[in-house]
């Protein structure tokens, strides 16, 4: 392969990457602007909150409960080495509120509802339903994307609260009924050591993760390639990209929020 061909391929790759980034930013800018332009489709928003939020509650219940239970077991084991098992409650609660609940909720919702959104929008793209919307003078960004983005931003913090509550409940049950920790001490230490800034930190993370969820899954569906292979690829890319983005952004958010709040 000649150097010229290699350079050309490299150049084309760079142009394609820059173009894809630009297109993703234009997409989200149009979606955000669409939020403020009438008509406001409340019914579509509520349907998406039902799809993304309410229909994820069961899985969040399960994951949250068992995550809290595991944290209690691991926490009690580690803290017992320092004679500090009384701190198991705050350890479970702070781990959940500040870190695990926002991240695991986001990952679960991306896997469950995100893949469904990308596949649904992608199929609408390849079966000309999005073209049909445009032909009927209905803006697909405002009709399809705005309700999904908003539903992600609204649902994620609510699900995170459910996750945290059930997680603490799971930790409490395992800690007090199986590991023999004192119920009063478990809850008392949580109340004494968890502040509103911890809760705010988790909520801010959830809001940002909800935004990432909506952006990535809608964009990948909207720009999906041709046929079943195109939808398959878009769905896989959406789940991987959104999950990685959540973990990367989580690091930077944690760093920034720790400096701001603590």
């Amino acid at each position: 392969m000649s150097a010229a061909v290699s350079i050309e391929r490299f150049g084309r790759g760079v142009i394609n990457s820059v173009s894809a980034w630009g297109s993703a930013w234009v997409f989200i800018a149009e979606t955000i602007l669409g939020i403020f332009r009438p008509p406001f489709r409340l019914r579509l928003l509520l349907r998406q909150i039902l799809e993304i939020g309410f229909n994820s509650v069961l899985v969040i219940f399960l994951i949250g409960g068992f995550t809290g239970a595991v944290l209690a077991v691991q926490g009690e084991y580690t803290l017992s080495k320092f004679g500090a098992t009384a701190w198991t409650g705050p350890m479970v609660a702070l781990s959940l509120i500040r870190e695990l609940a926002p991240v695991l909720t986001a990952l679960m919702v991306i896997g469950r509802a995100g893949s469904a959104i990308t596949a649904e929008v992608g199929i609408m793209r390849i079966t000309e339903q999005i073209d049909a919307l445009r032909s009927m003078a209905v803006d697909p960004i405002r009709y399809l994307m705005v309700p999904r983005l908003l539903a992600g931003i609204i649902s994620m913090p609510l699900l995170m609260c459910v996750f945290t509550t059930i997680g603490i409940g799971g930790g409490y049950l395992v800690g007090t009924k199986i590991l023999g920790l004192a119920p009063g001490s478990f809850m008392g230490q949580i109340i004494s050591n968890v502040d509103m800034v911890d809760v705010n930190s988790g909520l801010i993370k959830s809001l940002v993760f909800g935004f990432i969820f909506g952006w990535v899954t809608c964009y990948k569906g909207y720009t999906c390639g041709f046929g079943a292979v195109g939808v398959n690829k878009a769905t896989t890319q959406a789940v991987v990209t959104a999950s990685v983005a959540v973990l990367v952004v989580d690091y930077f958010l944690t760093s920034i929020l720790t400096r701001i709040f603590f």
Partner: protein
Amino acid sequence: MISIQNIHKRFGSQVVLNGISLDLEPGKITTVVGPSGVGKSVLLKLILGILSPEEGDVLIDGRSITKARSEPERNDIRANLGVLFQSAALFDSLSVYDNIAFPLRERTNLNRLDIHDKVSFLLNSLSLSQYHKKLPQEISLGMRKRVGMARALIMEPEVILIDEPNTGLDPIVGQEVYDLIKYCHKEWGFTAVVISHELPEVFQVTDKMIMLLKGRIHLEGTPHDFINSTDPAVQQFIQGKLDGPISIQ
């Protein structure tokens, strides 16, 4: 009505349309034919303003949809167009009734009763009444095309664009779709552009034939001109022969 002026469209290095100019006659059905991949559906999407040409213009009632500065302006120009898509493109989550009512709910301020009257009229006219509660996936493709036609007609547009009307249909249902186009054209008197490669079925509905080949208009005339053309490419296309100037892409 619709005037296509010197349209050039390419995808990457592939030139699809290379200087197409065409004026649609009001009240007539114009059929665009040509081998697969020649750019027939691209032409339709250019008329709709869903794709933009590299060069040239598409005027709808004297207004350029290609040079419209914003989506609302394009939407305003599109208001006079209805489309029947190749796969009907009905919304999966909506019933037959809601699919037909969709443009009225989104683009007009009509109340529920007025919308019901208009939708019911079309359901009856196109023999769809018994299917009104069904979802698109619960009815046949032929019936979905019927619903797609009802949705295209609900805003009473002056122009209907029809993409490959009988793709995926058996000959009997395919004929039924052509009968539907004839019936609707007679009743509503719209101007139509039909994109097709189905010969000779399309001759029964069309007033004017356009054949696209290698990005250009290869032949323009009546169905009679088309059938009697001595052009080897036209005859190869009509007879469906492998040998000739048209190569398989």
